[in-house]
Protein backbone atom coordinates (compact mmCIF):
# COMPACT_ATOMS: atom_id res chain seq x y z
CA UNK A 1 0.00 0.00 0.00
CA UNK A 2 2.88 2.34 0.76
CA UNK A 3 3.86 2.00 -2.89
CA UNK A 4 1.07 4.47 -3.61
CA UNK A 5 3.55 7.15 -2.68
CA UNK A 6 4.69 6.76 -6.28
CA UNK A 7 1.72 8.85 -7.43
CA UNK A 8 2.43 12.04 -5.44
CA UNK A 9 6.19 11.58 -5.64
CA UNK A 10 6.40 11.06 -9.39
CA UNK A 11 3.69 13.65 -9.96
CA UNK A 12 5.73 16.19 -8.02
CA UNK A 13 8.85 15.14 -9.90
CA UNK A 14 7.11 15.69 -13.25
CA UNK A 15 5.97 19.14 -12.14
CA UNK A 16 9.48 20.00 -10.96
CA UNK A 17 10.94 18.68 -14.20
CA UNK A 18 8.56 20.70 -16.35
CA UNK A 19 8.50 23.93 -14.41
CA UNK A 20 11.93 24.17 -12.74
CA UNK A 21 14.57 21.82 -14.11
CA UNK A 22 13.69 22.51 -17.75
CA UNK A 23 14.53 26.16 -17.05
CA UNK A 24 17.88 25.37 -15.42
CA UNK A 25 19.84 24.78 -18.57
CA UNK A 26 23.46 24.01 -19.14
CA UNK A 27 23.96 25.02 -22.78
CA UNK A 28 20.83 23.40 -24.25
CA UNK A 29 20.70 20.38 -21.98
CA UNK A 30 19.00 19.82 -18.66
CA UNK A 31 18.70 17.16 -16.02
CA UNK A 32 16.15 14.37 -16.30
CA UNK A 33 14.87 14.04 -12.74
CA UNK A 34 12.49 11.20 -13.62
CA UNK A 35 15.25 9.12 -15.15
CA UNK A 36 17.47 9.56 -12.09
CA UNK A 37 14.59 8.76 -9.72
CA UNK A 38 13.71 5.59 -11.63
CA UNK A 39 17.35 4.49 -11.74
CA UNK A 40 17.76 5.09 -8.00
CA UNK A 41 14.51 3.30 -7.20
CA UNK A 42 15.28 0.25 -9.33
CA UNK A 43 18.71 -0.07 -7.72
CA UNK A 44 17.29 -0.41 -4.20
CA UNK A 45 17.68 -3.94 -2.94
CA UNK A 46 14.22 -4.34 -1.41
CA UNK A 47 12.25 -2.70 -4.20
CA UNK A 48 9.93 -4.96 -6.18
CA UNK A 49 7.76 -2.35 -7.85
CA UNK A 50 10.21 -0.60 -10.15
CA UNK A 51 8.28 -1.58 -13.30
CA UNK A 52 5.10 -0.06 -11.87
CA UNK A 53 6.96 3.15 -11.16
CA UNK A 54 8.31 3.05 -14.72
CA UNK A 55 4.83 2.66 -16.19
CA UNK A 56 3.55 5.57 -14.12
CA UNK A 57 6.47 7.76 -15.21
CA UNK A 58 5.82 6.91 -18.87
CA UNK A 59 2.17 7.85 -18.40
CA UNK A 60 3.03 11.22 -16.84
CA UNK A 61 5.75 12.13 -19.32
CA UNK A 62 3.76 10.84 -22.29
CA UNK A 63 0.97 13.14 -21.19
CA UNK A 64 2.93 16.37 -21.07
CA UNK A 65 5.77 15.84 -23.54
CA UNK A 66 5.66 15.87 -27.30
CA UNK A 67 8.34 13.19 -27.37
CA UNK A 68 6.91 10.12 -29.17
CA UNK A 69 5.44 7.67 -26.66
CA UNK A 70 7.55 4.71 -27.90
CA UNK A 71 10.68 6.75 -27.07
CA UNK A 72 9.41 7.45 -23.58
CA UNK A 73 8.43 3.81 -22.93
CA UNK A 74 11.55 2.28 -24.45
CA UNK A 75 13.77 4.88 -22.80
CA UNK A 76 12.51 4.59 -19.22
CA UNK A 77 12.00 0.82 -19.32
CA UNK A 78 15.48 0.46 -20.80
CA UNK A 79 16.87 2.40 -17.85
CA UNK A 80 14.91 0.19 -15.43
CA UNK A 81 16.13 -2.98 -17.13
CA UNK A 82 19.71 -1.74 -16.96
CA UNK A 83 19.32 -0.85 -13.29
CA UNK A 84 17.85 -4.23 -12.37
CA UNK A 85 20.62 -6.07 -14.21
CA UNK A 86 23.34 -3.99 -12.59
CA UNK A 87 21.68 -4.20 -9.17
CA UNK A 88 22.06 -7.97 -9.20
CA UNK A 89 25.66 -7.84 -10.38
CA UNK A 90 27.19 -4.94 -8.45
CA UNK A 91 24.86 -4.85 -5.46
CA UNK A 92 27.79 -4.39 -3.08
CA UNK A 93 28.76 -1.07 -4.71
CA UNK A 94 25.46 0.78 -5.01
CA UNK A 95 26.91 4.20 -5.83
CA UNK A 96 29.03 2.74 -8.62
CA UNK A 97 25.92 1.03 -9.94
CA UNK A 98 23.96 4.31 -9.67
CA UNK A 99 26.57 6.27 -11.61
CA UNK A 100 26.77 3.53 -14.23
CA UNK A 101 23.00 3.36 -14.68
CA UNK A 102 22.62 7.14 -14.87
CA UNK A 103 25.50 7.43 -17.34
CA UNK A 104 24.43 4.58 -19.62
CA UNK A 105 20.72 5.29 -19.16
CA UNK A 106 21.09 8.95 -20.13
CA UNK A 107 23.12 8.03 -23.20
CA UNK A 108 20.57 5.38 -24.16
CA UNK A 109 17.63 7.77 -23.74
CA UNK A 110 19.34 10.53 -25.69
CA UNK A 111 20.35 8.22 -28.55
CA UNK A 112 16.83 6.85 -28.69
CA UNK A 113 15.32 10.37 -28.76
CA UNK A 114 17.76 11.46 -31.45
CA UNK A 115 17.11 8.45 -33.68
CA UNK A 116 13.32 8.63 -33.37
CA UNK A 117 13.15 12.38 -33.97
CA UNK A 118 15.57 12.15 -36.86
CA UNK A 119 13.51 9.40 -38.51
CA UNK A 120 10.32 11.35 -37.93
CA UNK A 121 11.75 14.19 -40.00
CA UNK A 122 13.06 16.61 -37.36
CA UNK A 123 16.31 18.10 -38.64
CA UNK A 124 18.90 17.47 -35.89
CA UNK A 125 22.66 17.87 -36.31
CA UNK A 126 24.47 15.15 -34.39
CA UNK A 127 27.36 17.46 -33.46
CA UNK A 128 25.01 20.01 -31.92
CA UNK A 129 23.06 17.31 -30.12
CA UNK A 130 26.14 15.72 -28.58
CA UNK A 131 27.89 18.92 -27.52
CA UNK A 132 24.89 21.04 -26.56
CA UNK A 133 22.38 18.52 -25.21
CA UNK A 134 23.83 15.09 -24.45
CA UNK A 135 27.02 16.01 -22.59
CA UNK A 136 25.47 18.81 -20.46
CA UNK A 137 22.46 16.59 -19.62
CA UNK A 138 24.83 13.77 -18.70
CA UNK A 139 26.75 16.03 -16.34
CA UNK A 140 23.58 17.37 -14.68
CA UNK A 141 22.13 13.88 -14.26
CA UNK A 142 25.38 12.68 -12.66
CA UNK A 143 25.24 15.63 -10.25
CA UNK A 144 21.73 14.63 -9.23
CA UNK A 145 22.65 10.95 -8.85
CA UNK A 146 23.95 10.91 -5.26
CA UNK A 147 21.29 13.06 -3.55
CA UNK A 148 18.49 11.29 -5.39
CA UNK A 149 19.96 7.89 -4.59
CA UNK A 150 20.11 8.76 -0.88
CA UNK A 151 16.57 10.07 -0.93
CA UNK A 152 15.19 7.05 -2.77
CA UNK A 153 16.99 4.69 -0.39
CA UNK A 154 15.14 6.34 2.52
CA UNK A 155 11.88 6.08 0.58
CA UNK A 156 12.53 2.38 -0.07
CA UNK A 157 13.14 1.78 3.65
CA UNK A 158 9.80 3.42 4.36
CA UNK A 159 7.91 1.58 1.60
CA UNK A 160 9.55 -1.77 2.39
CA UNK A 161 10.23 -1.83 6.15
CA UNK A 162 12.90 -4.33 7.28
CA UNK A 163 10.60 -6.64 9.27
CA UNK A 164 8.22 -6.92 6.31
CA UNK A 165 11.09 -7.53 3.90
CA UNK A 166 12.55 -10.28 6.08
Amino acid at each position, binding site marked *: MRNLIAFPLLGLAVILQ*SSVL*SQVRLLSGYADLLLVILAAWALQERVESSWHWGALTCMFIGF*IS*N*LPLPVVILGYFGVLFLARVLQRRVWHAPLLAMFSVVFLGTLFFQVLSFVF*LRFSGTPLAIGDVVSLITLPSLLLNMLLAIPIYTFMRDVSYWVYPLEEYE
Partner: protein
Amino acid sequence: MNSRSLQTTIIFLVVGGILVLAFSGALGSASRGFTSVLIDTQTWISSRFLGFQDFVTAPRDIVTLRQRNAELEAQVSQLQAQLIELQQRVNETEILAALVDFSRSNPESTYKAASVIGRDPSPFLHYIIINRGSNDDIRRGMPVVTNQGLVGRVDAVIADAARVQLITDPASSVNVYLQNADTSAVLYGSVTGDVSLDLISQDATVEAGDLILTSGLGGGYPADLIIGQVVTVRSLEFELFQQATVQPAVDFSRLEIVLVITNFRPVDITPLEPVATPAP
Protein backbone atom coordinates in the same frame (compact mmCIF):
# COMPACT_ATOMS: atom_id res chain seq x y z
CA MET B 1 24.73 71.60 76.73
CA ASN B 2 28.21 70.54 77.90
CA SER B 3 31.45 72.04 76.65
CA ARG B 4 32.19 69.06 74.31
CA SER B 5 28.95 69.31 72.40
CA LEU B 6 29.29 73.11 72.24
CA GLN B 7 32.73 72.63 70.66
CA THR B 8 31.32 70.22 68.08
CA THR B 9 28.51 72.62 67.24
CA ILE B 10 30.94 75.48 66.70
CA ILE B 11 33.21 73.37 64.46
CA PHE B 12 30.21 72.30 62.36
CA LEU B 13 29.02 75.88 62.06
CA VAL B 14 32.48 77.11 61.03
CA VAL B 15 33.01 74.30 58.45
CA GLY B 16 29.44 74.67 57.24
CA GLY B 17 29.94 78.41 56.90
CA ILE B 18 33.12 77.90 54.91
CA LEU B 19 31.30 75.45 52.62
CA VAL B 20 28.44 77.91 52.10
CA LEU B 21 30.95 80.62 51.25
CA ALA B 22 32.82 78.26 48.92
CA PHE B 23 29.65 77.17 47.08
CA SER B 24 28.45 80.75 46.80
CA GLY B 25 31.76 81.75 45.20
CA ALA B 26 32.65 84.19 47.90
CA LEU B 27 36.08 82.62 48.32
CA GLY B 28 37.23 83.48 44.76
CA SER B 29 39.72 81.12 43.06
CA ALA B 30 39.76 78.83 46.07
CA SER B 31 36.02 78.50 45.68
CA ARG B 32 36.30 77.57 41.95
CA GLY B 33 39.01 74.98 42.66
CA PHE B 34 36.91 73.44 45.37
CA THR B 35 33.74 73.15 43.24
CA SER B 36 35.63 71.80 40.22
CA VAL B 37 37.19 69.05 42.30
CA LEU B 38 33.79 68.23 43.67
CA ILE B 39 32.16 68.12 40.24
CA ASP B 40 34.96 65.99 38.78
CA THR B 41 34.62 63.58 41.66
CA GLN B 42 30.87 63.41 41.20
CA THR B 43 31.22 62.87 37.46
CA TRP B 44 33.67 60.04 38.03
CA ILE B 45 31.48 58.37 40.61
CA SER B 46 28.37 58.88 38.55
CA SER B 47 29.88 57.38 35.42
CA ARG B 48 31.20 54.39 37.37
CA PHE B 49 27.81 53.92 38.93
CA LEU B 50 26.07 54.00 35.57
CA GLY B 51 28.57 51.45 34.26
CA PHE B 52 27.89 49.25 37.22
CA GLN B 53 24.15 49.66 36.78
CA ASP B 54 24.43 48.68 33.09
CA PHE B 55 26.43 45.64 34.08
CA VAL B 56 23.87 44.58 36.66
CA THR B 57 20.82 45.19 34.47
CA ALA B 58 22.43 43.96 31.20
CA PRO B 59 21.03 40.42 31.20
CA ARG B 60 17.50 41.72 31.41
CA ASP B 61 18.19 44.15 28.52
CA ILE B 62 19.73 41.41 26.35
CA VAL B 63 16.66 39.28 26.72
CA THR B 64 14.49 42.25 25.81
CA LEU B 65 16.74 43.11 22.90
CA ARG B 66 16.76 39.56 21.66
CA GLN B 67 12.99 39.47 21.75
CA ARG B 68 12.82 42.77 19.96
CA ASN B 69 15.40 41.60 17.43
CA ALA B 70 13.44 38.43 16.75
CA GLU B 71 10.28 40.48 16.30
CA LEU B 72 12.02 42.85 13.92
CA GLU B 73 13.61 40.00 11.98
CA ALA B 74 10.20 38.37 11.58
CA GLN B 75 8.83 41.71 10.45
CA VAL B 76 11.68 42.14 7.96
CA SER B 77 11.07 38.64 6.57
CA GLN B 78 7.39 39.40 6.23
CA LEU B 79 8.11 42.68 4.49
CA GLN B 80 10.63 41.02 2.20
CA ALA B 81 8.03 38.40 1.22
CA GLN B 82 5.54 41.19 0.59
CA LEU B 83 8.13 43.06 -1.44
CA ILE B 84 8.83 40.01 -3.61
CA GLU B 85 5.11 39.46 -4.11
CA LEU B 86 4.56 43.09 -5.00
CA GLN B 87 7.55 43.09 -7.33
CA GLN B 88 6.10 40.03 -9.03
CA ARG B 89 2.75 41.78 -9.35
CA VAL B 90 4.42 44.86 -10.79
CA ASN B 91 6.23 42.68 -13.35
CA GLU B 92 2.99 40.90 -14.22
CA THR B 93 1.17 44.20 -14.50
CA GLU B 94 3.84 45.59 -16.79
CA ILE B 95 3.64 42.52 -19.03
CA LEU B 96 -0.16 42.63 -19.04
CA ALA B 97 -0.16 46.36 -19.78
CA ALA B 98 2.13 45.76 -22.76
CA LEU B 99 -0.11 42.92 -23.93
CA VAL B 100 -3.21 45.10 -23.59
CA ASP B 101 -1.48 47.81 -25.65
CA PHE B 102 -0.63 45.20 -28.24
CA SER B 103 -4.19 43.86 -28.42
CA ARG B 104 -5.56 47.42 -28.68
CA SER B 105 -3.23 48.20 -31.55
CA ASN B 106 -4.28 44.98 -33.31
CA PRO B 107 -8.08 45.05 -32.94
CA GLU B 108 -8.66 42.67 -35.86
CA SER B 109 -7.70 39.71 -33.65
CA THR B 110 -9.24 38.50 -30.41
CA TYR B 111 -6.84 37.35 -27.74
CA LYS B 112 -6.84 35.18 -24.66
CA ALA B 113 -4.04 35.71 -22.17
CA ALA B 114 -2.38 32.64 -20.68
CA SER B 115 0.45 32.04 -18.22
CA VAL B 116 3.37 29.80 -19.11
CA ILE B 117 3.38 27.02 -16.51
CA GLY B 118 5.96 24.62 -17.86
CA ARG B 119 8.19 23.42 -20.63
CA ASP B 120 8.61 20.11 -22.41
CA PRO B 121 10.68 17.72 -20.27
CA SER B 122 12.78 16.71 -23.30
CA PRO B 123 15.70 19.01 -24.15
CA PHE B 124 15.28 18.04 -27.81
CA LEU B 125 11.95 19.82 -28.06
CA HIS B 126 10.97 23.47 -27.64
CA TYR B 127 7.44 23.47 -26.33
CA ILE B 128 5.76 25.40 -23.54
CA ILE B 129 2.69 24.51 -21.53
CA ILE B 130 0.08 27.24 -20.90
CA ASN B 131 -2.74 27.33 -18.38
CA ARG B 132 -5.59 27.71 -20.88
CA GLY B 133 -7.29 24.85 -22.68
CA SER B 134 -10.42 23.77 -24.46
CA ASN B 135 -12.54 25.15 -21.61
CA ASP B 136 -11.30 28.59 -22.68
CA ASP B 137 -12.00 27.90 -26.37
CA ILE B 138 -8.37 27.25 -27.18
CA ARG B 139 -8.03 25.02 -30.24
CA ARG B 140 -5.15 23.24 -31.92
CA GLY B 141 -3.32 25.40 -34.46
CA MET B 142 -4.12 28.78 -32.88
CA PRO B 143 -1.16 31.20 -33.07
CA VAL B 144 0.45 32.37 -29.85
CA VAL B 145 2.07 35.80 -29.58
CA THR B 146 3.40 38.34 -27.12
CA ASN B 147 3.53 42.10 -27.55
CA GLN B 148 7.02 41.54 -29.00
CA GLY B 149 6.04 39.10 -31.70
CA LEU B 150 5.22 35.54 -32.71
CA VAL B 151 5.83 32.79 -30.16
CA GLY B 152 4.43 29.67 -31.85
CA ARG B 153 1.18 27.81 -32.19
CA VAL B 154 -0.98 25.52 -30.09
CA ASP B 155 -0.03 21.91 -30.71
CA ALA B 156 -2.19 19.97 -28.25
CA VAL B 157 -5.07 20.92 -25.96
CA ILE B 158 -6.66 19.43 -22.87
CA ALA B 159 -9.45 20.91 -20.74
CA ASP B 160 -7.40 23.44 -18.76
CA ALA B 161 -3.99 23.48 -20.44
CA ALA B 162 -2.39 23.47 -23.85
CA ARG B 163 1.00 22.68 -25.30
CA VAL B 164 2.50 25.27 -27.64
CA GLN B 165 5.17 24.54 -30.23
CA LEU B 166 7.63 27.44 -30.24
CA ILE B 167 9.01 28.74 -33.52
CA THR B 168 12.44 27.76 -32.14
CA ASP B 169 11.50 24.05 -32.11
CA PRO B 170 13.62 22.05 -34.58
CA ALA B 171 10.46 20.67 -36.23
CA SER B 172 8.91 24.14 -36.67
CA SER B 173 8.75 25.96 -39.99
CA VAL B 174 7.01 29.29 -40.64
CA ASN B 175 6.40 30.99 -43.97
CA VAL B 176 7.71 34.52 -43.62
CA TYR B 177 7.99 37.73 -45.55
CA LEU B 178 11.02 40.00 -45.51
CA GLN B 179 9.58 43.49 -45.55
CA ASN B 180 12.56 45.46 -46.89
CA ALA B 181 13.63 42.87 -49.44
CA ASP B 182 10.02 42.25 -50.51
CA THR B 183 10.51 38.50 -50.72
CA SER B 184 9.30 35.32 -49.06
CA ALA B 185 11.30 32.74 -47.13
CA VAL B 186 10.88 29.97 -44.58
CA LEU B 187 11.92 30.27 -40.95
CA TYR B 188 13.26 27.14 -39.26
CA GLY B 189 13.97 26.42 -35.61
CA SER B 190 16.86 24.37 -34.32
CA VAL B 191 17.83 22.18 -31.42
CA THR B 192 19.84 25.04 -29.91
CA GLY B 193 16.85 27.39 -29.94
CA ASP B 194 18.28 29.58 -32.71
CA VAL B 195 16.12 30.41 -35.70
CA SER B 196 17.26 30.81 -39.27
CA LEU B 197 15.86 31.70 -42.67
CA ASP B 198 16.11 29.49 -45.71
CA LEU B 199 14.68 29.39 -49.22
CA ILE B 200 15.40 33.09 -49.82
CA SER B 201 15.55 33.77 -53.53
CA GLN B 202 19.01 34.55 -54.90
CA ASP B 203 17.52 37.59 -56.65
CA ALA B 204 16.45 39.17 -53.38
CA THR B 205 18.65 41.74 -51.69
CA VAL B 206 18.60 40.88 -48.02
CA GLU B 207 20.50 42.94 -45.48
CA ALA B 208 21.16 42.77 -41.78
CA GLY B 209 18.37 44.48 -39.85
CA ASP B 210 15.61 43.56 -42.31
CA LEU B 211 12.31 43.00 -40.54
CA ILE B 212 10.77 39.52 -40.75
CA LEU B 213 6.97 39.09 -40.62
CA THR B 214 4.70 36.12 -41.09
CA SER B 215 3.51 35.92 -44.70
CA GLY B 216 0.28 34.04 -44.03
CA LEU B 217 1.13 31.56 -46.80
CA GLY B 218 0.16 27.98 -46.05
CA GLY B 219 -2.60 29.04 -43.70
CA GLY B 220 -0.71 28.11 -40.54
CA TYR B 221 -0.31 31.65 -39.20
CA PRO B 222 -2.01 35.00 -39.83
CA ALA B 223 -0.04 37.48 -41.89
CA ASP B 224 2.06 40.37 -40.57
CA LEU B 225 3.04 39.07 -37.16
CA ILE B 226 6.52 40.26 -36.22
CA ILE B 227 9.14 37.52 -35.87
CA GLY B 228 12.47 39.31 -35.69
CA GLN B 229 15.32 40.80 -37.68
CA VAL B 230 17.94 39.43 -40.02
CA VAL B 231 21.37 39.29 -38.40
CA THR B 232 23.63 37.84 -41.07
CA VAL B 233 23.08 36.68 -44.64
CA ARG B 234 24.83 33.79 -46.35
CA SER B 235 24.69 33.96 -50.10
CA LEU B 236 26.72 31.55 -52.22
CA GLU B 237 26.57 31.67 -56.01
CA PHE B 238 26.43 27.91 -56.46
CA GLU B 239 23.47 27.47 -54.10
CA LEU B 240 19.84 27.76 -55.14
CA PHE B 241 18.81 29.91 -52.19
CA GLN B 242 20.26 32.33 -49.66
CA GLN B 243 20.21 31.66 -45.94
CA ALA B 244 20.12 34.08 -43.02
CA THR B 245 20.41 33.97 -39.26
CA VAL B 246 17.67 35.69 -37.31
CA GLN B 247 17.40 37.55 -34.02
CA PRO B 248 13.89 36.75 -32.77
CA ALA B 249 11.89 39.63 -31.33
CA VAL B 250 10.66 37.44 -28.48
CA ASP B 251 12.94 36.40 -25.62
CA PHE B 252 12.00 32.73 -25.46
CA SER B 253 13.91 32.11 -22.24
CA ARG B 254 11.72 34.55 -20.30
CA LEU B 255 8.22 33.76 -21.48
CA GLU B 256 5.74 34.35 -18.66
CA ILE B 257 2.46 35.49 -20.17
CA VAL B 258 1.39 34.95 -23.77
CA LEU B 259 -1.64 35.76 -25.91
CA VAL B 260 -3.49 33.13 -27.92
CA ILE B 261 -5.19 34.49 -31.04
CA THR B 262 -8.55 32.79 -30.72
CA ASN B 263 -10.29 34.05 -33.85
CA PHE B 264 -7.74 32.51 -36.21
CA ARG B 265 -8.52 29.12 -37.67
CA PRO B 266 -5.57 27.45 -39.39
CA VAL B 267 -6.18 26.08 -42.86
CA ASP B 268 -5.14 22.52 -43.52
CA ILE B 269 -3.81 22.54 -47.08
CA THR B 270 -2.51 18.97 -46.97
CA PRO B 271 -5.23 17.65 -49.34
CA LEU B 272 -4.24 20.31 -51.88
CA GLU B 273 -0.55 19.41 -51.86
CA PRO B 274 0.56 17.45 -54.94
CA VAL B 275 1.06 13.75 -54.30
CA ALA B 276 4.23 12.27 -55.73
CA THR B 277 3.24 9.66 -58.31
CA PRO B 278 5.64 6.83 -59.08
CA ALA B 279 7.38 7.11 -62.41
CA PRO B 280 5.98 4.72 -65.06
